[in-house]
């Protein structure tokens, strides 16, 4: 777990510390498929993946890749912040042997008074820097010298505030 991150210290365009996982082998894929009880043959049956689904090999589960995106943001937000929203599309495949680099970049910052809301762009790159899982996320953070984001998270803590949005300079 990293040191707490405070809303006051951030600016649009900042990159999050990236998370690297891999190389991800067929054993990693098998372990996830078993832990999640996902029996889809494209993750363990190469003949089926290639012959039936016309894939180049078995593929790393999208449901596994979601974890690294969530982990990137929960590690960054720490226990005093909160990952509120995250969405992503499985646009590209990742294959056994690839090392994945999970990244995030701040798009906009919204000042809600006691707390701050950070909107981010996120994704997963492979060794060739091909993006497979583009998405966006919203993280709520405390301010320096302010209270932790209340847990459980309640969206009402952000209502009634005039958000001051700072966008990425283009």
């Amino acid at each position: 777990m990293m040191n707490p991150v405070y809303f006051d210290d951030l600016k649009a365009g900042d990159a999050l510390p990236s998370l690297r996982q891999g190389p991800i082998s067929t054993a990693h894929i098998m372990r996830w498929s078993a832990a999640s009880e996902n029996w889809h043959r494209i993750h363990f049956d190469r003949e089926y993946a290639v012959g039936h689904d016309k894939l180049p090999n078995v593929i790393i589960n999208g449901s596994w890749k979601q974890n690294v995106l969530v982990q990137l943001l929960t590690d960054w937000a720490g226990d005093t912040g909160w990952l509120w929203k995250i969405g992503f599309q499985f646009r590209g495949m990742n294959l056994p042997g690839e090392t994945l680099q999970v990244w995030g970049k701040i798009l906009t910052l919204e000042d809600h008074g006691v707390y701050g809301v950070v909107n981010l762009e996120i994704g997963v790159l492979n060794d060739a820097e091909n993006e497979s899982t583009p998405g966006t996320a919203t993280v709520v953070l405390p301010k320096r010298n302010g209270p932790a984001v209340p847990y459980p998270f309640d969206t009402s803590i952000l209502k009634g505030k005039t958000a001051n949005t700072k966008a990425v300079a283009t």
Partner: protein
Amino acid sequence: MKYITEEHLALIGAETELTEATHEVQSSETRRFYQAAMDPAPRYFDDKAGARFGGNVAPPVFPLYMFRRGHGTPDPLATIDQPDADGHTRAFRGLPEIKVDLPRLLNGGYEYEFFRYARLGERVFRKSRYRDIYEREGKSGTMVFVRFDDIYQTEDGTPLLNLTTTVILR
């Protein structure tokens, strides 16, 4: 439209009952899950780290994976030797089956909103509904997109997370 009929469109809005997960949040399952996800955050196993959350908790997306095969239910692998069997039902979340003549299934992506972690020992409940069913032309031909919403909550109705899933049939 090639595959979507009025009967399919009539399923939009179909809902499940509020359904209880197969087991309560069990430490053996959360351990196997976070290890396979490669996200060893201390709040999952360390009492001190879990204190802010009322005790040790499960990874954010864990509630999705609590709806496992129940005792005395049919074996999903019983038909795995059939040519198009991939281990996945098209009756998503126990909603009415989406019958289209497309044999391949891919995970299209997730959109989450998180409020609270599920804590060890808690019972978890889910309610689902079909949000949308539509088709698009892709590089490999026509694809059918099925989108469904879930809400996850504790026994007393405390929200855990909301999720929209996109599944692609092709």
